[in-house]
């Protein structure tokens, strides 16, 4: 029953009409949502609700980000000034191994699909849940188990092989943390596979009848392409890590040249997965950017079909380029040329997307809210990162730049400047939907600025260091490179500070943020047709399907502080009844 005075505390079940009364949205109590019911730790740990599982992923993935980030700070502290003494190399090697493994296997690969894929995918389809909710929960538990096992490696002897675990060092080193870390990554791989299976089945089977493939939001195309890679590439990582373990434990000799094996075979197996893996990292990010650019330009996305096809093209062609990580491994020159050519080819779909985004911005009505800030900077960062990838794909340049800081700068520009920025954009974009609260826009932009400056300050000097030939994975350097390294370290500390600020105001918004309307940004995709935060079953009845980028049917409603369907207030309130 709606009362005339807004309830001061969430009372649950107090009626959903209150948030739409004039001036009352700041104080209105939320209705029952997936957050408030059912209660209890067990209901969270045994949940089958995709939204709750998404939050479980968020908790653990962000914890991994924090640990990996701490490792990064340690690395940059090491490299702040060149050292006179030669101590600390072994520890340094363990730090960069941990940083790489945690960031890649525990943060970036599971992060976007696990958090945003899980939360948003069924909502964008107007569905009640994913196709296989129990498999979804199993995926999360496998992720947690694998992560714990991988981190346990610190306690049982440590690993200093680098996240690439190249043989023969990884099979013969006395550092005993290799097996738990590798098996941990194997288990996380199983989680990734099951998530991919779940998403593909959901997109095929649970689309509403009117939502044909080309009426899907581009974020779903991106998730679909990501899931294809997860399903096809991750098993190869699985068998590679298994063979590595068996080699270490039983000494079968498959990667040991003294026993007739071939260490370079490991590299082929490893990169056959790990190159497509980077597309697992970037494709969901690009999907998010497509959404953000369109919504915050109030303009239909340009070249929808091209962007959709390019996602699948990246997924498929991405399987053909793994050899560009191995130009200096002794593989044949012909093979090197072939991989170089294919690597140039795989850049084309990414460029197609970038130009389509720019065309979308053209003559759009651009709003610089925090998600859009991250989206725009994504285009800048990913442009730099992607183009420097082409430099590395050029054979003679790679001979000079392989294993230097140039490579480090390149992949941090695409993964951090690309994926992590997109993840932050997605976090701010869907935060109101997930928690029913608006974050503070002022602090959002301040933090964005610090993060952007910090990030570029950290990694741009590393391009220069790389061209000068400074090798990566070394704990010390010659004094003549001091300026760039110090600059880079200062940038890293700034970046860390910015990210901490993000965490602070986001957490603060959970308690004190303005209550969010159903559609604060005026987007036309279906997840904004349910309340913020949604009830457990998402929609009372399936929402009407239209063009996901047609904003003409929406208008801003001052009373609720968000957007509603035009001239059809009745239609909007249907979902609230």
């Amino acid at each position, binding site marked *: 029953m709606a009362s005339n005075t807004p309830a001061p505390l969430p009372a649950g079940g107090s009626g959903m009409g209150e948030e739409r009364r004039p001036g009352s949205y700041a104080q209105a109590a939320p209705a029952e949502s997936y957050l408030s019911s059912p209660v209890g730790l067990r209901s969270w740990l045994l949940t089958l609700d995709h939204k709750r599982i998404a939050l479980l992923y968020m908790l653990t993935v962000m914890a991994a980000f924090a640990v990996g980030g701490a490792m990064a700070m340690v690395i940059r502290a090491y490299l702040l000034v060149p050292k006179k003494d030669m101590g600390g190399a072994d520890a340094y090697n363990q730090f960069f191994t941990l940083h790489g493994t945690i960031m890649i296997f525990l943060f970036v690969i599971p992060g976007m699909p696990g958090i945003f894929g899980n939360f948003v995918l069924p909502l964008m389809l107007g569905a009640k849940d994913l196709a296989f909710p129990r498999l979804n929960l199993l995926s999360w538990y496998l992720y947690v188990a694998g992560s714990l096992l991988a981190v346990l490696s610190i306690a049982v002897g440590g690993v200093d092989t680098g996240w690439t675990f190249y043989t023969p060092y990884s099979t013969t080193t006395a550092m005993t943390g290799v097996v738990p870390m590798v098996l941990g990554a194997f288990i996380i791989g199983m989680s990734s*596979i099951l998530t991919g299976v779940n998403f593909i089945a959901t997109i095929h089977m649970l689309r509403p009848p009117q939502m044909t493939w080309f009426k899907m939001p581009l974020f779903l195309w991106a998730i679909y392409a990501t899931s294809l890679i997860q399903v096809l590439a991750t098993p190869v990582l699985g068998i590679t890590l298994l063979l590595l373990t068996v080699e270490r434990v039983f000494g079968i000799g498959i990667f040991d040249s003294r026993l007739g094996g071939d260490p370079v075979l490991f590299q082929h197996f490893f990169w056959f997965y790990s190159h497509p893996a980077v597309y697992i990292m970037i494709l969901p990010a690009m999907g998010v950017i497509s959404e953000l650019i369109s919504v915050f330009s109030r303009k239909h996305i340009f070249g929808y079909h091209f962007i959709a096809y390019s996602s699948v093209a990246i997924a498929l062609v991405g399987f053909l380029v793994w050899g560009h990580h191995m130009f200096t491994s002794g593989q044949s020159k012909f093979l090197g040329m072939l991989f170089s050519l294919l690597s140039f080819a795989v850049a084309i779909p990414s460029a197609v997307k970038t130009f389509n985004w720019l065309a979308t911005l053209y003559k759009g009505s651009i709003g610089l809210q925090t998600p859009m800030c991250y989206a725009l900077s994504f285009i800048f960062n990913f442009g730099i990162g992607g183009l420097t990838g082409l430099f590395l794909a050029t054979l003679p340049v790679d001979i000079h730049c392989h294993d230097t800081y140039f490579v480090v700068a390149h992949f941090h520009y695409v993964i951090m400047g690309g994926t992590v920025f997109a993840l932050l954009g997605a976090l701010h974009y869907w935060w109101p939907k997930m928690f029913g609260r608006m974050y503070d826009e002022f602090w959002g932009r301040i933090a964005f600025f610090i993060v952007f400056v910090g990030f570029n300050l950290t990694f741009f000097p590393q391009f220069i260091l790389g061209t000068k030939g400074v090798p990566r994975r070394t704990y010390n350097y010659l004094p003549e490179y001091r300026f760039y390294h110090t600059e880079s370290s200062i940038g890293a500390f700034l970046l860390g500070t910015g990210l901490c600020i993000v965490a602070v105001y986001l957490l603060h918004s959970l308690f004190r943020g303005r209550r969010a309307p159903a559609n604060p940004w005026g987007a036309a995709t279906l997840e904004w047709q349910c309340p913020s935060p949604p009830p457990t079953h998402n929609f009372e009845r399936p929402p009407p399907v239209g063009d996901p980028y047609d904003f003409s049917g929406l208008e801003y409603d001052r009373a609720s502080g968000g957007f509603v369907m035009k001239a059809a207030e009745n239609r909007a309130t249907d979902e609230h009844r």
Partner: protein
Amino acid sequence: MTSDKGQMTKDHPPFLAHQFDTPEQQFRAGKLGMWLFLCTEILMFSGLFCAYAVYRHNHPEVFVRAAEFLNWKLGALNTVVLICSSLTMAWAVHSAHCNQQRRLKVMLGLTLFLAFGFLGVKAIEYHDKWKHHLLPGVRFKPELDHAASSTGVSPVPPAGETSGDRQPISKLPEIGVSPRWPAQPRKDGEGQAAQKAGPWNGPAPGKVPEGLAEFAPRHAPGPAKLPSYTHIFFGIYFVMTGLHGLHVLAGMVVICWLLSRARRGDFSSAYYAPVDLVGLYWHFVDIVWIYLFPLLYLVR
């Protein structure tokens, strides 16, 4: 349509999950999911098949000779056993589809029994390998006089072949770590010596690189000689059949679960999706073996 439960309504049968609109949609989604999962399994095994292809191409003589240690008759028996278990599994799916409860349970039980038989034969084979030290990698110490093979005769190099690069492998060079976990630290000096040899193609005929003195042919009358790197074959053999065996075991666990659900009366012609999907998995396990058998046992 009726079911054992008797409380199925046309609108929302009890087995229908809330995110699906119709049982057909649920069944089709399950099928798609299972096929996707099987694709991932195929890709995982294909890594091993790739390794097999690489090493067989590089060391064909190893594969021909080492395969003589495998008893192809036992392998063929296993193949027949597994094919029969696929038959009984398919029959079980058909029984569920036709609502034949008793036949369903009998067929599931038979499948389990045959799978158990498969693992039993594999256990006999593994035990035989263990007895003759035909183990992968550094544990490879074949005792050829007693090695069981299908013909009961120790493998002897065909007439006309020189001993060239074929030396008895009595002891492999110590790699930096003993094949145990946690690994033992590398002993000083050994790693260096072994690394210098760097044999990508094995020691040169007649010439023993320094540090590999233990590879030099012994003069004592010894058993028939094997090609060096024969242990590679056994490494591949154990990993492939071992991984396959683990999948058979996992399949048996799942079939037990199906059996317990069948005894509870969960399945009917309206709802037999789990049986169908596990059947798909079981056929996949069978197919992998059908590829493994000729590649490992019938190398000639």
